[in-house]
């Protein structure tokens, strides 16, 4: 089948390479609207099937396309979908921006059914929701509050991320509420300028109504290893681990995400989990 990638930022370019590697696609087309951008120059240098004709170019090439990946920004996504919505009835649209368009999908959770318009939430969402969901299922009403702090390397945060921090937080929280049904949550993000850059690291805090029991802790440990092994299928260096509890009413789980190192450096696990999830999903779509 054929696909179109919109956007030549860090995500778009990495997606192109992962699509090439997946061997699912006969033709991959990548579009943006500024042929002088860094990403466009990279596409030309690497001899990608690239065009700067923007959304009009995309529309002209929709005919034999099965999947459209949107790797632009939250604001552009709204504009793009306005233009495309009526033209893509028998196609799949995978939204990698933090806008709220589309149905939320986490490959770990929704494996068999892919909505026509998919929202991949955010890197923090892709990383943490499988864990939050399992812990919620085990603790039930004993779970009072969940907090997620994602730490990403400054070099992995492009312009779209920096301009869209509010959309990032809002969309991540909305998705956590919708998928896990935990209502009291808080999402925060930190950009770390350290050199050498740090790997993407997430801290999850689960506040309980009473001290955590040994049985629950054991169940959670088991489900963490299940999550690790299943996510490792598409994200080989995803690693969630429990911290020995200091406060008995607070459970802490950290998740480190190291990327494949295709076009992105391995520390940019935050971007890599988005492109890896997108390509992993496309494996279950056929012509």
């Amino acid at each position: 089948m054929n696909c179109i990638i919109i956007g030549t930022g860090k995500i778009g370019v990495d997606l192109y390479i992962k699509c090439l590697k997946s061997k699912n696609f006969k033709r991959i087309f990548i579009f943006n609207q500024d042929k002088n951008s860094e990403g466009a120059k990279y596409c030309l240098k690497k001899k990608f099937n690239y065009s700067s004709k923007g959304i009009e170019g995309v529309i002209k090439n929709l005919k034999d396309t099965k999947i459209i990946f949107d790797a632009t920004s939250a604001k552009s996504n709204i504009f793009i979908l306005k233009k495309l919505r009526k033209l893509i009835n028998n196609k799949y649209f995978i939204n990698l921006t933090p806008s709220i368009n589309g149905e939320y999908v986490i490959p770990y959770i929704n494996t068999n059914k892919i909505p026509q318009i998919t929202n991949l939430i955010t890197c923090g969402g892709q990383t943490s929701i499988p864990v939050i969901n399992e812990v919620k299922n085990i603790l039930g009403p004993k779970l009072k509050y969940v907090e997620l702090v994602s730490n990403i390397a400054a070099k992995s945060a492009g312009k779209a991320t920096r301009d869209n921090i509010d959309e990032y937080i809002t969309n991540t929280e909305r998705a956590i509420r919708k998928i896990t049904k935990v209502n009291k949550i808080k999402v925060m993000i930190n950009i770390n300028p350290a050199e050498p850059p740090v790997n993407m690291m997430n801290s999850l805090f689960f506040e309980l109504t009473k001290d955590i029991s040994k049985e629950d802790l054991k169940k959670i440990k088991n489900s963490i290893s299940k999550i690790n092994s299943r996510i490792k299928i598409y994200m080989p260096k995803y690693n969630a681990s429990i911290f020995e509890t200091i406060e008995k009413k607070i459970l802490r789980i950290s998740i480190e995400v190291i990327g494949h190192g295709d076009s992105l450096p391995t520390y940019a696990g935050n971007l890599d989990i988005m492109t890896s999830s997108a390509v992993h999903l496309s494996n279950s779509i056929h012509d």
Partner: protein
Amino acid sequence: MIKNKLIISDVTLRDGNHAVNHSISREIIKKYCEEAEKANIKIIEVGHGNGLGASSLSIGKSLITDKVALTTARKALKKAKLSIHSIPGFSRITDLQKAIDCGVDIFRIGTNSTEIDTVYSQVKFCNKKKVEVWGVLMMAHLVYNKKKDYLKKIKYLVDLGVKTIIIMDSAGIFLPGDIKEIFTNIKKKFKVNLGFHGHNNFGTAVWNSVIAHKYGAKIIDASIKGFGAGAGNTQLDILATVMARLNMKTNINLNRLYSLAKVFPTYFKKNVIKYKNPYSEPKNIMSANYGLFSGFASKVDYYSDKLNLDDIEAFKAIGKKKLVAGQEDLIINALYNLKKKK
């Protein structure tokens, strides 16, 4: 000697929250605001130590909500302006709207200086709402280098339409010579109001502030008795006195200020967290030397105590990790690894 107009901005009720694990109560806010106004303080900043929306398990839960804190201060203040600190990533646009509704006058939007472009959407929002917005370069030492990266960050803010910029020495690492160089160079290139926010790890906060003012800072942040993160802030009572000695008019009533300084610790008597005068302990000196965020001190204390680790060893471990303000959640990871190695 000094000709610039000087405005002292009192950050006691915001940065001071770091010193008492964000437990400043509604009563303390009320009493403090009333007394500070009598001393003729012009700007009062209120909130969680890390600003708007930052109350959390990872950084520390506030005793009261932002809304309660801000409405209490608003009610107590008749003349003084009410200001807030906001870090995108902790706070969001809806928090800013709430603060507007509470009657906040000054919106100080800040991030670690290297990532200043993340203030974009919040500054745009404030401009749209026509509220007074300032830019804050936190951890400013991260962009103080031979390439003068701070000038690029200032330009970014100026281009966004920000008219007042605070240079924040979050780590307490700057010396008077650094301050002179930074302010001179910014003044040469930009027509913008400048301010300085000091921390006292090296015992230089007051003098850094005097130098900042001499070389162009119109606004100086300070807190009563230096009450603030880590080794504390520029001590307001000393600063106001020294400025008076230098013939710099601040209009602050010194007698009122001294009474406030004397009575301030008693505000905390009923509080769970014991009031402690900020003091530069060896760990604070080391923290500054590593260029770490002053606010880490209380977290490092808490976890090194729980894990039975030496606090100096603990600071060394997080110093190596190069954590920046906001990464309180990773302190425990670093200390766990340290514990494992033992």
